[in-house]
């Protein structure tokens, strides 16, 4: 079968992409350019037709362009986004044929051999392509020929379709630049009076190969099909999504779960094949009335076990309102993570048999279940932090992304409950201190805990106190709660059966309760 290739060239890909993302606020008829920093100055990278009309050109410095055209609108170019956009276009182009490759930074080759009849012939296919692209505000140049080289030449210099086996006649009158030759070679050929491809083709091969390197003949042969040229399709990331379309709508929980189960098996097979595990799954139900509802499942660990995933989804699916019935179910792994293969356990360890869920599995499932109710970010673990400030000596981290801490540093005794400091009121300051026998010297007695104080509306009297333990604030850290300065902590037992953690701030006299031992 005769090979047929489409070359799809987007001469203004970068500018059009930028305008698609953020159109100009005024009417479209404003000179617009993308700038890039090259050779020590801001230069024009790409521009719209209006800019070209005003005499601007690629490579011109932005300053010069502004002097020619003061109303020029510029934006910085984003080459990576352009690349991403081109690969998105390549993915879109697979609707015409399965074999799509990209070239340079703004073109696509489509090998449409044998697929043009699906669109009603080559003309119809090219028209369809042009229409769809212009609807999305892109202006493509399309060439169709037997070889990628000829198609390239057509798309760049004379849009059109070359009939099968008529490549030479179609591109004969085009300039030699249509052979994808370098600018230098083109200039040199032009100086010799060789302007068109026909001129080049008519020359004896021997003289050409003596004067020029292999490139010229190679490109000519490729364009005329005497030398093969391959199109390398882009590597596509695997898509972890499956869909089930039903001939009749369903609504019973059992039916829906059976459908989800079928999808889950397929999805998990695909995940396993790529050694991936799902971290976030999204289940979308499309209803008969075109309404749709989706359910997210965030997992405590990347997983690809259909049976366990299905049970975790059960609760969420129950909450879905089927309405007049569901006629499409789509399951997508929104976020995947690499998982390593696990060896089947052959030894019976800790009472679990091969194939049976281990305790860790069940715990992860529990985290997922709880997470689906209160949010995975609210399932936390304690993690030790290196700080002498009591409330900063630990942090709460999401359990789904952190393993338990192995060891905890041992400090002085700390209360089992810790809360923001609560001031205590002293009934008649210092007067009761005299009743307390003390081992302390007179000047220290001033800082000893009060004999009675009021906390949370209760009058408490001191029975026993241990301390002080002085903790200094971090001077480099401006924190309101430590604005009172140094803290002298006391472990205070009251006759009422509380064991509190009080602190005194000698720099700004006052007593506070910060924790409870018992």
């Amino acid at each position, binding site marked *: 079968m005769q090979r047929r290739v489409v070359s799809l060239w987007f001469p203004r890909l970068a500018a059009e992409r930028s305008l698609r993302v953020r159109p100009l606020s005024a009417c479209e008829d404003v000179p617009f350019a993308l700038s890039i920093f090259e050779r020590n100055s801001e230069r024009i990278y790409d521009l719209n037709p209006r800019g070209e009309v005003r005499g601007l050109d690629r490579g011109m410095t932005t300053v010069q362009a502004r002097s020619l055209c003061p109303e020029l609108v510029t934006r910085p170019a984003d080459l990576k986004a352009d690349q991403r956009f081109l690969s998105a276009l390549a993915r879109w182009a697979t609707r015409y044929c399965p074999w799509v490759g990209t070239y340079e930074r703004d073109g696509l080759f489509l090998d449409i051999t044998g697929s043009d009849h699906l669109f009603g012939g080559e003309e119809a296919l090219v028209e369809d392509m042009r229409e769809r692209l212009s609807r999305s505000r892109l202006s493509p140049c399309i060439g169709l020929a037997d070889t990628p080289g000829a198609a390239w030449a057509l798309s760049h210099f004379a849009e059109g379709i070359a009939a099968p086996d008529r490549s030479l006649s179609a591109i004969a009158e085009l300039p030699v630049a249509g052979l994808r030759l370098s600018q230098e070679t083109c200039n040199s050929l032009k100086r010799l009076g060789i302007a068109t491809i026909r001129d080049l083709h008519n020359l004896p091969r021997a003289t050409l190969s003596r004067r020029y390197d292999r490139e010229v003949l190679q490109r000519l042969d490729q364009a005329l099909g005497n030398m093969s040229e391959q199109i390398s399709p882009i590597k596509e990331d695997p898509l972890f999504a499956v869909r089930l379309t039903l001939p009749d709508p369903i609504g019973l929980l059992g039916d829906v779960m059976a459908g989800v189960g079928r999808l889950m098996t397929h999805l998990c097979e695909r995940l396993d094949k790529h050694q991936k595990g799902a971290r976030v799954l999204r289940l979308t139900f499309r209803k008969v009335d075109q309404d749709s509802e989706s359910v997210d499942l965030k997992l405590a660990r990347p997983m690809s076990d259909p049976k366990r995933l299905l049970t975790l989804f059960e609760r969420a699916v129950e909450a879905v309102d089927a309405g007049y019935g569901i006629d499409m179910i789509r399951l997508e792994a929104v976020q995947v993570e690499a998982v390593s293969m696990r060896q089947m356990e052959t030894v019976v360890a800790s009472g679990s048999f091969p194939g049976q869920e281990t305790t860790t599995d069940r715990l992860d499932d529990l985290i997922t279940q709880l997470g689906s*109710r209160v949010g995975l970010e609210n399932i936390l673990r304690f993690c030790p932090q290196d700080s002498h400030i009591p409330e900063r000596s630990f942090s709460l981290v999401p359990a789904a992304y952190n393993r338990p801490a192995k060891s905890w540093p041992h400090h002085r005794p*700390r209360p089992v409950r*810790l809360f923001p400091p609560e001031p205590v009121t002293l009934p008649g300051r210092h007067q009761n201190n005299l009743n307390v026998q003390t081992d302390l010297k007179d000047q220290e007695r001033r800082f000893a805990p009060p004999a009675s104080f009021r906390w949370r509306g209760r009058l408490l009297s001191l029975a026993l106190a241990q301390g002080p333990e002085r903790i200094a604030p971090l001077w480099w850290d401006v924190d309101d709660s430590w604005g009172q300065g140094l803290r002298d902590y006391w472990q205070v*037992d009251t006759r009422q059966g509380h064991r509190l953690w009080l602190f005194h701030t000698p720099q700004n006299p006052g007593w506070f309760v910060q924790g409870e031992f*018992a």
Partner: protein
Amino acid sequence: MRNDFASVFPLKRSRAHEVVTGGAGFVFAAIVAGMTDRKTTGTPNLDKKLPVGSGPQGGGLAGTVVWCCENRKPTLNPEGLLPYCDPGRFLITRTQTHLDVLASAETALRSGAVPLVVAEVSERVGLTEGRRLQLAAEAGRSTAVLIVPDGGGSNAAETRWQCRAVMTEDGLENRVFNPLAVESFDSTHWRWSLIKNKTGTLSEWIVRWDAATRRVIVVSEIGG
């Protein structure tokens, strides 16, 4: 009928227990959590028959403790837990509402993945909720400890405890100690009152925590 401490503590497995809130109530929960830290016997069938924490050291996996609380910022301090249990084994579940605390606790109990679930509840627990938690605990073979407000327990609970710190050492009262002057003194004494018991009589004990052996030691029995 004489009520023996050993017959009620360690707490019965697969049951919902309650403890009245307060610092000592938290310590009670922490001590129960510490007992589930202990290793299992390695034989699941035997483990199921044993009360919480009575298994010997060594063997299988230690248990994770799910701690459900309503506050956005929990008041539980891991460093304060250190004498009683390993804070790394705690899974804190922060929830928005009182109802979510109960629902999370029920889910965790029913899953059977954890040996102990502690729930800090801020409101009165009704009979229905209490019974549901009890059934979930039986289904999942895990123990529940509810930290309830004073007078806010439910009738479905197996036991309810009230804990207070007490001063017992005579002569130590009314004194302010300088930590440098006194080597150390152990004031960790609590009065643990059993104020509800489905399967026995009520009683009170003065207990203390022995950090070396990690056990609760009964100092004296008050009534029974």
